[in-house]
């Protein structure tokens, strides 16, 4: 194997990491944790991943990747297929358009931005689900879910930042 080829393969593998992480978080969302009351309000890990990578490395997380990750999430958790796909593509676009606002600023700014995006995403998920089932749905679970998602964001963002650093420092 020539050095250039191995180097290129290495680069491809690195570039696939965000997408692979996305799929991993989809699978993580399906694990039964046996904690009373946790299931419906478990943090939306995929939303955090999409937001983070859209702000920092939009080129590695294309809208098509995000679309299929969302669709996979819908199918595996049994949600109406298409809801998370649409919402995640929306979140990616919004986060990418505001990327300049967040990059290089303090983490609090990023966290605050994520909070706004998460609650907007929750609102859209709630509305779409209600339209899908043609009935009014209690919004409490999604409010709690998004609150937990925002609360868990610093931890996940730290993991993403470390991954980002490790992968692309010398690339």
């Amino acid at each position, binding site marked *: 194997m020539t050095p250039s080829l191995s180097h290129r393969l290495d680069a491809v593998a690195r570039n696939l990491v965000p997408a692979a992480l996305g799929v991993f978080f989809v699978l993580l969302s399906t*694990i039964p944790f046996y904690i009373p009351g946790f299931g419906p309000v478990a943090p939306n890990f995929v939303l955090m991943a999409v937001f983070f990578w859209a702000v920092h490395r939009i080129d590695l997380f294309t809208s098509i990747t995000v679309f299929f990750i969302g669709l996979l*999430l819908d199918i595996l958790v049994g949600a109406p*297929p298409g809801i998370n796909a649409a919402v995640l593509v929306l979140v990616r676009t919004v986060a990418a358009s505001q990327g300049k606002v967040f990059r290089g600023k303090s983490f609090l700014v990023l966290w605050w931005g994520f909070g706004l995006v998460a609650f907007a995403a929750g609102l859209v998920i709630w509305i779409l689900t209600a339209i899908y089932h043609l009935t009014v749905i209690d919004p409490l679970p999604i409010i709690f879910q998004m609150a937990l998602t925002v609360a868990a964001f610093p931890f996940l963002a730290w993991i993403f930042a470390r991954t980002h650093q490790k992968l692309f420092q010398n690339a």
Partner: protein
Amino acid sequence: MNKRGGSSVLRLAVPAKVLLQRFAFLFLILTAFGIMLLSKAETIVVEKVSTVVVDVFAPIMDVLSRPAAAVNDAVKTVRGFSDLRDDNIRLKRENERLLIWQEAARRLASQNQALQSLLDFKPGPKSQSIATRVIADSGGAFVRSVVVNAGDRDGVRKGQAAVSGVGLAGRVATAGYRSARILLITDINSRVPVLIESSRDRAILSGDNSGMPRLIFLPANASIKSGDRVVTSGHGGVFPPGLQIGRITVATDGIMRVKPNVRFDQLEFVRLIDFAAVSSVVPKEGAETPPKKAASR
């Protein structure tokens, strides 16, 4: 952005890229809505594709779900130690009570047999059951379903009742080759024909994504109270009759709800009951008859 069209290629290339991205964005959003509409229209394609995808990921979810299950078992074991003495006292008392019930059951069983032979009674076909493990929970805020590690190859069919040790958990919504999705009775799409055990009033148990499904279509003159037991009625042919579901609680807003026996956050194993053989002889849901008060004798 179109106003800024310049002469150089570079100036054109950037807006073109943006336009392409915008187009991809619109296209994907519309596709997502298209898929939603297709699945709402109960198209078989969406269901088939979803089943195949769940099937493909089932082995991975099976492996991933094991550590959490092991931790849960360990926690239960440790908790069990501290309750050992209390449990012992409680179980001894319960045992004494149950021995009396056993005596009564034996007497009734022999009486029942004698009466059945007098009446030349034909018992319904025996149902079979399949034991399965829960490998995925629904992580969504608005979905109440689980995935189990058994499918078509194990005899799982759409519509089978899923029960845990203490009562009805749900029914098989879709069955893949090696996995199946169970729609829990708390899901917003779940409707179960039920019977109030003491009064024999019929109703429909309707999930609304909360922990306690509602009782709807109760007869106006139904004489029920908090704590009454609710069981499946067997109407509609989906569920076997007499499966325990839970107890009635009347909420502060006056809505009749049922507190299920099953603890859905602790659902680790479920048994799927193959009841299809019997369904053909049970009248269909549409053929409603007035509730029979004296049906149990």
